Structures are given as C-alpha cells and as structure tokens.
C-alpha cells in the first residue's frame, strides 16, 4: 500500500472518530435535564410569548434529525451555537480562552518531554534507575493539584519567587507548566526507558558497539530513534491529559482558560459551552493523534507497508 493511501486512511479514521465524538456531545445536549427553552430563559421573564420567541429564535420547532444535521453542519463551519447564560456566540466565549490554556499545555508538553528524555537517556546505572523509576511512579501517581499546592506554598508563599495567581508574563506560567508537565514526564520516561532497553538488545545495537561506538553514541544515534516511536504514539493521549489536567491546574493557580470556562458552564448548566469545550478537546486529541500516526510513518518505514 502506498504512503498516500496510508495517510488518507488515518485521516479518514480521525474524521470518523470526530463525527462520533460530536454526536456523543449532541446526545448529551439532548439528555441534559429540563427543557431547553427553560435553560435559555433562565431566571428571566417567562411568558408564553417569550417562550414562542425563544423557540422561533433557536428554531427548536424543527424535527430532531434536522436539528442534529444542522448542528453538525454548523459545527463544521466553526459555529458552536450560543451560550444560554451569556447570550453570546459560544465560539467567542471559548475562543477568547483558548490561548491561555494552549500556552499552558504547550509549555507543559515541552517541559515534560525534555525531562522525560533526560531521565531516560541520562540515567542508565542500575541504582540510579531504581531511584528514577520510583520517582517516575511518584510523578505519575501524584494528583496534579497536590504538586501545584506544594509548589505554590514553597516557591510563591515561602520564597515569593513566582506570582500566586493570574496569567501575567512568563513567571506566572512556570509553576503551572511544571505541575502539569511532571505526570507527563513520569509516564513518557517509563515508555522511553522500556523502548531504549529493548532497542539496546537488538542486533543493530550490537553491530554499532562492534564498530567501536561508545555506549552514549549507540544510545543517542541508534536506540533513541526506536524508543521514540511508542512515545510519539502517546502524543494524542498526552494532549488529552494536558487539557483535562488544565481544568484542575487553572483552578489551583487562579489562571484564566478553557478549564475555568468549562467549570463555570458546568455549574451553571450552560450546555452549549460545556459541549464546545469538550468537542474542542476531542478535536485536539484527534488532530494530534493523526499527526502522531503520520509522524510514526515518517520515523518507521516498516509502518508504511501494512
């Protein structure tokens, strides 16, 4: 099978998953408690005339299937409906908060991957490995809010090195990114180390050593490429964890972002906003996953064939 069709198949699979995710979100919208008209009116005046206006404005009188298809069609165009609560387009409400969360997620991903590579490549001695794998277990299992709270109380309250809350400048990004990146680093380091161990047992590693390469060069030039593959495959999952985790991290550090928007929408029953954030997260997951699949094709020629 050619590379082009392998790429096409992965993109198509991604689109199917996205469609299913959007449908699941729409079902959640239908399943939400109470009448949709009640949710839109909220605490406002409730007369039959106003109800009729709401139904006309939101076009709730159409058959369910038509509404569903309309929802999908508008979602494709980036129109995610209007917030019940704020009476503004959801795309505006969510769009304004994408960058702070994205910034945090990217910073955490960079920090996490760097730390993971350093941990997996640099620590090879048996006693150090045992220490490091314990540290990784601790990093993976520690709730992110505890890491955040400990970092806050040490670096912000005790030493006053970083701001306590908000999103002003680079300094405000450091602690949240470290908090969010540590669990990622723990998991990626484990995956990388397993991959390196397996790669170093392969015949090509023996050949490289026989050619007189130092162990460090065997590791960096030959084994790391093989070990990267499973780690890259985890990229989509990693971004899911980062976005899910940012909900909690933003609360701990009092940062603006998608998590805060989602949380407020959940407590207020503002379903269009909740759904927009969830679908957005699913989209990011699918896009990153597809890119990771394609990166896998790039790294490993064997995958291009099957």
């Amino acid at each position, binding site marked *: 099978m050619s590379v082009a069709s392998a790429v096409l198949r992965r993109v198509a699979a991604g689109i199917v998953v996205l469609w299913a995710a959007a449908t699941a979100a729409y079902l959640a919208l239908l399943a939400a408690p109470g009448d949709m008209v009640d949710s839109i009116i909220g605490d406002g005046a409730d007369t039959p005339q106003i109800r009729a206006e709401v139904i006309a404005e939101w076009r709730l009188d159409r058959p369910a299937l038509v509404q569903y298809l309309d929802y999908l069609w508008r979602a494709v165009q980036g129109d995610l409906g209007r917030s019940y609560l704020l009476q503004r387009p959801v795309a505006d409400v969510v769009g304004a908060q994408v960058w702070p969360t994205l910034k945090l997620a990217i910073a955490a991903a960079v920090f996490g991957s760097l730390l993971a590579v350093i941990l997996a490549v640099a620590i090879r001695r048996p006693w150090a490995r045992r220490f490091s794998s314990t540290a990784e277990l601790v990093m993976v299992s520690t709730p992110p809010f505890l890491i955040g709270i400990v970092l806050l109380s040490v670096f912000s309250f005790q030493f006053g090195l970083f701001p306590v809350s908000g999103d002003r400048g680079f300094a405000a990004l450091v602690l949240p990114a470290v908090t969010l990146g540590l669990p990622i680093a723990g998991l990626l380091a484990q995956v990388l180390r397993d991959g390196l161990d397996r790669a170093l047992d392969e015949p090509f590693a023996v050949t490289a050593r026989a050619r007189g390469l130092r162990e460090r060069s065997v590791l960096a030039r030959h084994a790391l490429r093989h070990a990267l593959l499973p780690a890259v495959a985890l990229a989509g999952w990693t971004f899911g964890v980062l976005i*899910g985790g940012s909900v909690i991290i933003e609360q701990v550090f009092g940062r603006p972002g998608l998590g805060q928007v989602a949380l407020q929408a959940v407590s207020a029953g503002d379903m269009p906003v909740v759904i927009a954030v969830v679908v957005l997260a699913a989209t990011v997951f699918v896009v990153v996953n597809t890119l990771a699949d394609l990166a896998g094709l790039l790294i490993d020629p064997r995958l291009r064939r099957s």
Partner: protein
Amino acid sequence: MTLALTRPVTGRLRLRTRPRPGLAVAAVFLALILTAVAWPSLFGGDPLAADPLNVLQAPSARHWFGTDQLGRDVFDRVVHGARHSLSIGVAATLIATSTGILLGLLAGLGHRYADEAFSRTFDALSAFPIVLLALLFIAVAGTGTTSLIVAIGVALTPHYARVVRAQTFVVRRAAYVTHAVAFGASRPRLVVRHVLPNVLGPIPVIAVIGLGEAVLIAAGLSFLGLGPQPPSPEWGAMLSEGRGYLHIAWWASVLPGLVVTATIISLTALGRHFQRRFEGRTA
C-alpha cells in the same frame, strides 16, 4: 547449552529474589487505609467538631495534622475522609469493570459489524479527556456523589472494554475453545464455561491499578467542587478548602494531599507488582 538457554540473558530474573521494601510499605499503608474505611473512630475523633479557639493550628502532638479554618482536626478529617474517597473510587471502578466486561464481550464475540460499531464508540469516547468526559456527564446529570461515581465509571469504561475485547479475541482462538466446539458445547456454555473465566483473568489486576486512577480522578473532581459537598470530609474537597489558607496554613491542604498520593501510589505499585507476577515477568 540447554542450561545457557534457560538462564536469563540480562540477569533480570534476579529481581525476583530481591526484597521489595517499597511493596511492603505500600501494603501496610493500604491496610491502615482499609482499617480507616472500616472503622474510622479507631484512629480519629469527630471530623466535624469545630473548635473556634484553635483555628489553623500547626501540626502538634495533640493535632497530628494541625487544624483547619474552623478548628477541626485535619487528621480526624483525613481518617474519616478515607471512607468517602475510597468508596467513590471502588464504586466507580465496579461500574467501569462490569460495563466494560459486558461491552467488551459483546464486541469480541458478536458479529463483525457489532464489533466495528462498539470499537468505534470506544474510540470516540477515548477521544475525550477523562476529566472532561466526567465533567460532561456531571453537566447532564447534576452535581452530587452519585453522579460523580457514575461519571467516573462511565469515563473509565472504554479502557476495560478494550482490554476485555482484545482478550476475548485471544481466547476465542485458543485450542481449548476449538476443542470444546468439537465436543459439541453449546454457545452459552462455551461463553460461560470457557471464554469468560479466561477473559476475566487479568481484570482484577488491572482493576487495582484502575482503582488508583479512579481515586485520583475523584479527588480531582471533588477538588473542583463537583463531589461531596462541605462539610463532609472528602479528600479532594479538603484540599480545595485548604487551598484558600495555603499562605498561612500549608498543612490543611498539603497533608491530606500526601495521604491521597500515598494511597494512589500504593495501589499502583501493588497493582503493577501483581501484573508482573501475572505476566510471569519481572522486568
């Protein structure tokens, strides 16, 4: 030569005999936590008793974990919180495993189209980050402990369903299943007597690790205020309350957080240990 072939090449098997102090600590800690779940008053006093004269006291011999903003003993609250937090995790894991086993079996044994439909559904559900999937469910079902449990259960189901489905495919092709078919076993008998027991094998081990994850997510969501409401002493909720007093009383949030962490680490470490034993590897 036979000897050389059966000897471990990289010396990994030697790990088996090495004492594992970490595991023993984890087991003892979990035993303590379980005792606290079963019999909280053995360790601590009233978790709701406020003492306005001793507000935000640092840890001392009298208050091991200090006191919170209402003068309640943090240690007592942590002990009593074990029941809340662990039962949420256990209930969610039970929901996730039972639904996952059912759906995974249906996908693994059903028609090819049924399998395709189930697998795509699992794929789509896995595209949502678990915390957000649980948030979506809570937005639909409302806040509260029950909906928190079901939300985490639903969010973790695809994971178990996938494991069961994969395992079903392996078992279905095993020789003993073919033999049973040859002996004329009926389909229900085949599923109940031969497939199910072998599919279920790895589930308890995965569930122990999954329980750690469920406790982690539960603590996170109740930290966000979506779980048991104050004044009930739930671990995540305690951390959330303590966060507001972090600048003057670190113990009110950090110490409960350490207990949550130790619980999750112990569960994960024990689970992984069983997993290695189960797979017959000690890497």
